[in-house]
């Protein structure tokens, strides 16, 4: 069976080292927070200027001055800190952030990331902090479905969409397999409801090796 979004979030959470400083991108990556162990010591960074972000705010907790990068109201945890935007992005570029997790349109065999623009002529370009996160975090994890609605793979030899960052992705978590991306290429870490042969055939790209070969 392929994985649900919740199961993918659980697997990503399992791979985050205890005590890591982590940025969760907008959308699906925010679900990872639900699966972090309370005693993991993981500290969440939100690029609008906070470390120690807590769960979403509800009811009386909602404060328009306290939001996440998706502009949703959130809470603060003990030990939280606030800082301005230049500091927040200095944390990324300066290599202080351990992991960031983002969605993607495409990831290449060399870890190039494309997740900000489809390049469509009528699209309004908007990048936010994606390019800064891509090159700044020590490790970039991508969460996405492996195949687009038309069946084409999103893990590709070379990205056809405009890049967000070059050679920056270290892991790709998908509904049917997890991949590690390194200097030597793409390796299958784990599969879910698909054979390695079928995966290899459908991806149309070389894979370094797999746990089964």
């Amino acid at each position, binding site marked *: 069976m392929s994985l649900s979004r919740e199961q993918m979030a659980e697997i990503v959470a399992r791979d985050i080292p205890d005590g890591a400083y982590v940025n969760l991108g907008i959308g699906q990556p925010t679900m990872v927070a639900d699966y972090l162990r309370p005693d993991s010591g993981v500290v969440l960074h*939100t*690029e*609008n*200027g*906070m470390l120690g972000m807590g769960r979403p705010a509800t009811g009386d907790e909602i*404060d*328009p*001055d*306290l*939001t996440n990068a998706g*502009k949703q109201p959130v809470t*603060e945890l003990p030990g939280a800190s*606030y*800082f*301005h*935007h*230049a500091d*927040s*992005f*200095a944390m*990324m*570029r300066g290599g202080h952030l351990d992991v960031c997790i983002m969605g993607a349109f495409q990831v290449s065999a060399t870890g*190039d990331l494309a997740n900000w*623009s489809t390049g469509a002529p*009528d699209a*309004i*370009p*908007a*990048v*936010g*902090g*994606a*390019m*800064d996160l891509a*090159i*700044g975090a020590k490790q970039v994890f991508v969460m996405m479905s492996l195949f687009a609605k038309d069946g084409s793979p999103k893990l590709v030899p070379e990205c056809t969409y*405009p*890049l*967000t*960052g*070059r050679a920056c992705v270290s892991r790709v978590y998908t509904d049917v397999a997890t991949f590690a991306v390194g200097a030597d290429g793409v390796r299958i870490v784990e599969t879910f409801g698909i054979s390695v042969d079928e995966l290899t055939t459908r991806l149309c790209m070389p894979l370094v090796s797999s746990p089964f070969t």
Partner: protein
Amino acid sequence: MTALIMEAAEAVAAVKDGDTVLVGGFGMAGMPVELIDALIAHGAGDLTIVSNNAGNSDTGLAALLAAGRVRKVVCSFPRQADSWVFDGLYRAGKIELEVVPQGNLAERMRAAGAGIGAFYSPTGVGTPLAEGKESRVIDGREYVLEFPIRGDVALIRAHVADRMGNLVYRKTARNFGPVMATAAAVTIAQVSSIVDVGELDPEVIVTPAIYVNRLVSV
């Protein structure tokens, strides 16, 4: 000189046609809505607005855009679920857009405020946003040259000011405020309250008064 306390209308009279105006806020958090409303009433046009977003819903920055006062927007993330005012103007060809990665946007304003002529950033290397920019390999890593963004006027929102113009902020509403305050010739801060000099703990002041020219209590 320390900051002058005045009404919003008097404060934003500093904005002239064709100015570059830095506008604080991340979404609505930290957005100086009352100063923007006063700017709309003031009537200055042909403006270049530098802000993280390009307006939300129909208030604040979106209202300024809707009033036809903005020639160009420099921002990181114009497209949002509630950015219909900007979307309409952009698709009609009535507004220019420069998209800047969020960290480069902040750092370019920081550089302006800190007197840095330009800086090499690793953000955007190999992407369409680095095309045509000078690049350089330093210690084996590629960087692109980014230039400062200076404002004629900055409109920001802080939480509390003292009468000199020292500012403290509130939670994530701080966002671009402290950076923009340093990067404009005239910085106007709207605050929820103004206290006497000496009432703010010097250890917690985020924006020192040297960066603040005009204060508006709303």
